[in-house]
């Protein structure tokens, strides 16, 4: 089969695709021609696959929670586990398929056009996209946003490793700003229609806002009123477990922490970034809470609520740690992470228009990461210059 794809073969036009599948199935037999003769086993395929496996707990919990919220919306009081899971699975499957087909399709085409190997960066992005979008996002919007992000946030810069902005976040932000009516409010976060006969239909009067959405519109003078979609109050424990409305995979802080444990144990993600995002978020939450004002209802949220609600934890663990778009120097990582934490809470608290700030904070800091690194590298350069000067004097 292989000769068909080699230069001169009938199917040479699909060489990159063939190569992509071949190296996916078998470790390449290419041996080193110059330089070191031996290489470590770690490669970018494995790096990406570890991140995908760290996302599995969030994905599974997202399925369950989607079903659970739907059952709640339909007014049920009995929650059959496998039906919930199946409902969630059916809800997310088309989104995963659309995200991968669109994104990988573009990647394959570009790789073929550039005559390069297919790069595996989209393996992670493709699963992140459905996880950070509301479950009711229309499929065509998802397709448009994914295509936009892959082309304009990644391929125009040169592909995986060269992009400035996190591709998954660009997808999410594109959806948020291009289709604001559909992407926020109280209709998109909970599935209301039956899928393939599973589940029921929620009553028209049903509203399912996210807790942060409720906070942003609540009257702080009468106290924060965070409730689930049935009107029962949401405790910190609920928010930690994740049985609350929200984007598909980012409600459960517990599952996110399991993912974080996988990433840190394998050494794939930077603990410096993760730790400092949480530190920044904690510090800013304390400050906001200390000078809480009725003008800004979210300032009444406690530190625990700030860190557990919304997309903060997910952004800290899976988004901020993207090695390509994050700061690359060790000192820079602390600064980068800390500022993401601070800015996420600042946007959340002091801008009532945006109930969630984590994605914008990551995007903003993506833009500043090279500047932070520049300063850190400059310190190294200055050290060298000083050494030279003391010699000369």
């Amino acid at each position, binding site marked *: 089969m292989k000769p068909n794809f080699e230069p001169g073969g009938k199917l040479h036009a699909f060489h990159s695709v063939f190569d992509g599948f071949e190296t996916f199935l078998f470790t390449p*037999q290419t*041996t080193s021609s110059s*330089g070191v003769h031996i290489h*470590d*086993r770690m490669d970018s395929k494995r*790096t990406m696959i570890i991140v995908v496996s760290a996302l599995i707990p969030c994905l599974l919990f997202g399925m369950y929670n989607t079903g659970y919220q739907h059952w709640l919306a339909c007014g049920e009081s009995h929650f059959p586990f496998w039906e919930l899971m199946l409902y969630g699975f059916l809800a997310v499957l088309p989104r995963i398929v659309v995200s991968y087909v669109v994104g990988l399709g573009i990647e394959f085409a570009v790789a073929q056009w550039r005559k390069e190997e297919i790069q595996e960066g989209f393996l992670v992005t493709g699963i992140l996209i459905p996880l950070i979008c509301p479950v009711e996002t229309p499929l065509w919007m998802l397709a448009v946003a994914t295509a936009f992000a892959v082309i304009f946030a990644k391929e125009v810069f040169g592909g*995986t*490793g060269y992009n400035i902005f996190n591709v998954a976040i660009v997808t999410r932000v594109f959806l948020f700003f291009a289709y604001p009516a559909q992407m926020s409010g109280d209709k998109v976060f909970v599935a209301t229609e039956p899928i393939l006969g599973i589940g029921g239909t929620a009553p028209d009067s049903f509203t399912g806002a996210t807790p942060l959405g409720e906070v942003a519109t609540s009257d702080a003078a009468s106290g924060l009123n965070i409730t689930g979609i049935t009107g029962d109050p949401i405790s910190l424990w609920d928010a930690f477990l994740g049985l609350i409305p929200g984007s598909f995979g980012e409600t459960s802080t517990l599952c996110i922490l399991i993912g974080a444990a996988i990433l840190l144990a394998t050494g794939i993600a930077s603990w410096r970034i993760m730790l400092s995002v949480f530190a920044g978020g904690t510090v800013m939450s304390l400050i906001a809470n200390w000078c809480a004002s009725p003008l800004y209802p979210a300032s009444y949220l406690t530190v625990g609520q700030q860190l557990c609600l919304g997309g903060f934890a997910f952004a800290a663990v899976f988004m901020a740690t993207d090695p390509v778009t994050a700061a690359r120097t060790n000192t820079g990582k602390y600064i980068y992470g800390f500022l993401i934490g601070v800015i996420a809470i600042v946007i959340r608290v002091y801008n009532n228009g945006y109930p969630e700030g984590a994605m914008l904070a990551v995007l903003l800091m993506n833009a500043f990461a090279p500047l932070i690194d520049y300063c850190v590298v400059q310190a*190294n350069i200055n050290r060298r210059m000083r050494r030279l000067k003391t*010699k000369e004097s």
Partner: protein
Amino acid sequence: MSIKISLKKGLDLDILGGVSDLTLTAVAPSTVAIVPDDYPGFTPKPAVKEGDRVESGQPLLYDKFNQQIKLVSPAAGTVKAVVRGERRKIERVVVEIDSHAKEPSAAKPSAGNADDARALLMESGLWAMMRQRPYDIVPDPDAKPRDIFVTGFDSAPLAAPSTVYLAGKERELAAGVELLSKLTEGKVYVSRHDGEALKDIPGAEMVDVSGPHPAGNASVLIANVAPVNKGETVWCLDIVTLARIGATVMTGKIPADTIVAVTGSEVEHPRLVSTLIGAELSALLAGNLKKETHHVRIISGNPLTGHRASMDGYLRYPYTQITVIPEGDDVAEFMGWAALSPKKSSVSRSFPGHFLRHKLNPDARLMGGRRAIIMSGEYDKVIPMDIMAEYLIKAIIARDIDRMEALGIYEVAPEDFALAEYVDTSKLPLQQIVRDGLDYLRKELK
């Protein structure tokens, strides 16, 4: 008083096929070769023709731009071939050894002052065995070294312990240091690995280094003792060369004997061999390879920085090691990226084998595809110098001279990036990038 350096960064690769028994086997090669590519910065011109008779220590090649710098024959015999490659570039000069040749008579040379010392080093070919920073090339005769650094041990995987060669050569080492100190106003530093039995050498500043590879690299020693600044030149050499310099000063004869570790998982009996500089590999490996059907990779040198060779190749300078590992081009590894097998080890904690600390049995595969730099901080973990490796590599690729200088390219040699190249998940050819960068810089700033 010695300086102490303790290094945290780096990586010791525990590879199968190391030498455990330090007894020596003598191997007399029938041919030896000098490869001018092993002496970066040296532009070879032949000093002999095919068929010429040469004495041991007689020049075979000289440098086009500094004619006093020479490469000499390790043995007496006849010049068998001056092998040329593309564009008539001299690839190697092969000498067929005449084992009945009489030892040339030698007189104790005069090396009383700096000029005599320089002339002696250049004439004897020992000059070309040294390197300078910046550029990692054969020292420029016009530049005065600020300091001279001698690396006392080889920390590369499977390397031969230098102590075997040095046994009983205390006087030579002292004489070598005495000669080198005439050439610099600074100090002569000699590094010594933690717990190795190298005694203090009179006249030298001893540096005790502890830590994993690349602790034995010259750049690491320099960076942690007295880093090179722009405009400065330092020399570096290994301790075997230092002993040779000493012996030459004492007797007038240039020792061409060397001790080579024949190592690697494809070698039947890893052993130490005493032979000549530039010995043919067929003699060193004769009858000592495992009978396997798969391809093997013969490396003249260590697995990180050595040269790919074949059975008709030669021992390359400065290596004292031959490594033979499986080529690996026949291994069909299904979904290797998903492997959970404890037998597969890695520096990454994502492989269960990482925790079991098995001996590695690496083959020559890249183990992945070449990518852009994705992961951050990988290189810095294995480079124990104050160098921002990733940024330096990017500056080199961009051919940005100011930034290369600012990021310290004068302090590094390609070998310092060998471990980074080994651990790199993007499988980039970092050593080649650094070598190209150094050559580019030298050409532009001439």
